[in-house]
C-alpha cells in the first residue's frame, strides 16, 4: 500500500470548429485530465510494484469524473478515449505501465461499461516532455472516424520522482472525417472491436 500524492492537476479542453473545411455545427471537443503524482518507486529497482495499481484506482475514478464534468457533465457525449503516462527521470518505463488498469477502470466506470480496449502510450522524460495520447472509440476499436490523438504535457512535470498520468476523452469523430471504414452508426458493440 502506497499513498497516492498528487502535486497538481490540469484540465485541457479543445473545441475544434473546423480544419480548413466546412464548419461543424457542433464543435468536436477533446479533453485531457493530467495528474502529477509522486513516484513511490523512484530511485531504485523495486521488484513488486503491481499493488500500486489498486492504490491508483480512486484517482482514476476521480480523474474520469472530472474529465466528464469538463465536457459538460453528461457521460453519454463521450465517444472516444485514451490514456498515457510520462515517468520522471528517477523512474522506469514499467512504472508508467501501472496506469493501464486504474486509468481504464476509472473511465469505464464513469462511462457506464465501455467495451473497447483503451488506447495508450507511455514514456520516460523530463519536465516539459510531451506525449501523444492515442484515442479510439469507446465501444469499437475499429471505428475509423474516431482514430485520433491529443498532445499533452506540462512545463514543470514530471520531476525526477514524479509520474504524469493522463486521461483523454473526445465527443465525436475527427472534424472532417472522410476516409471511410467502420462508422459509429454501424457498431455491433459485442466484442469491443466492431
Amino acid at each position, binding site marked *: 500500500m502506497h499513498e497516492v500524492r498528487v502535486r497538481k492537476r490540469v484540465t485541457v479542453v479543445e473545441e475544434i470548429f473546423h*480544419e480548413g473545411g466546412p464548419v461543424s455545427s457542433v464543435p468536436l471537443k477533446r479533453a485531457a485530465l493530467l495528474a502529477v503524482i509522486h513516484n513511490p518507486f523512484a530511485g531504485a529497482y523495486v521488484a513488486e510494484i503491481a499493488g500500486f495499481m489498486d492504490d491508483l484506482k480512486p484517482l482514476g475514478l476521480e480523474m474520469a469524473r472530472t474529465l466528464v464534468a469538463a465536457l459538460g457533465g453528461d457521460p453519454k457525449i463521450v465517444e472516444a478515449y485514451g490514456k498515457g503516462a510520462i515517468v520522471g527521470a528517477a523512474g*522506469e*518505463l514499467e512504472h508508467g505501465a501501472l496506469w493501464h488498469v486504474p486509468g481504464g477502470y476509472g473511465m469505464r466506470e464513469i462511462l457506464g461499461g465501455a467495451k473497447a480496449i483503451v*488506447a495508450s502510450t507511455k514514456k520516460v522524460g523530463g519536465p516539459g516532455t510531451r506525449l501523444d495520447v*492515442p484515442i479510439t472509440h469507446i465501444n469499437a476499436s475499429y471505428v475509423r472516424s474516431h482514430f485520433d490523438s491529443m498532445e499533452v504535457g506540462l512545463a514543470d512535470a514530471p520531476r525526477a520522482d514524479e509520474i504524469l498520468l493522463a486521461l483523454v476523452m473526445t465527443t465525436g469523430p475527427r472534424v472532417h472525417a472522410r*476516409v471511410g471504414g467502420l462508422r459509429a452508426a454501424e457498431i455491433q458493440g459485442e*466484442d469491443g472491436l466492431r
Partner: protein
Amino acid sequence: MNAGLMAKIRKIATFMEETRNEMGRTIDPPTRRAAAVAVIENPYAGKYVEDLSLLMVIGEELGELLTTRAVAALGIPASSVESYGKAAAVGEDGEIEHAAAILHPKLGAPVRRVLGKGAALIPSSKKCGGMGVLLDVPLGHKDAAFVRSHFDGMEVRINDAPRANEIVVVVAVTNSGRPLARVGGLTKDQIKGEDGLR
C-alpha cells in the same frame, strides 16, 4: 527511391534503440524497438479536398516500404516481430484527416503481409505540427491487443520535417515487450491469437 511510387519521398530515416540495462538491471537479450520514417509531399496541402484517395494509395505503399525498413533495422526475421504501431504528423498546410487517410484505410494490409501475421489492431496516433514536432508511436502486441507487457510507445522526431506541405509517416516494430514488464495481465504465452484481442 521513388521509382514506381505515388509517394513523393524527400527522406527516409530509420531508428533502432536497444535497451541493455534498465534501473540497474541487465536486459538480456536486449529489448529492441525500431521505427522507419518517411517524409513525403502532401498532395493536398493548402486547400480543402474532399476525396483523399491518393493519400490512401500512398499509405499502402509506405506500409510495405516502412515495415520492411523497420524490420531490417531490428535485425530479426519479420515473423519474430512482437509488437507494432504507426503514426503520422501533417505539416501546417494540411489537416489531421490527411494523416487518417494515410494510416487507416490501406497501410495495415502490407504491414501484416510483411510480418506474416498481425491479428490485432495497429495502434496509432496523429497530429498536425511544424518542423521537429514529436510523434509518440503507440505500440501493442501484433496478435493480441490485451498483452499487457507489450503496451508501450516510441518517440520519433525529424528535426527538419514536416515542412508546411509535407507529412511524416512512421511504422514502428519491436522484438519484445517492455524491458522489465511486471504489472501482470495477459502474457504473450497465453495468446490465442484468434480475435486480435487475447
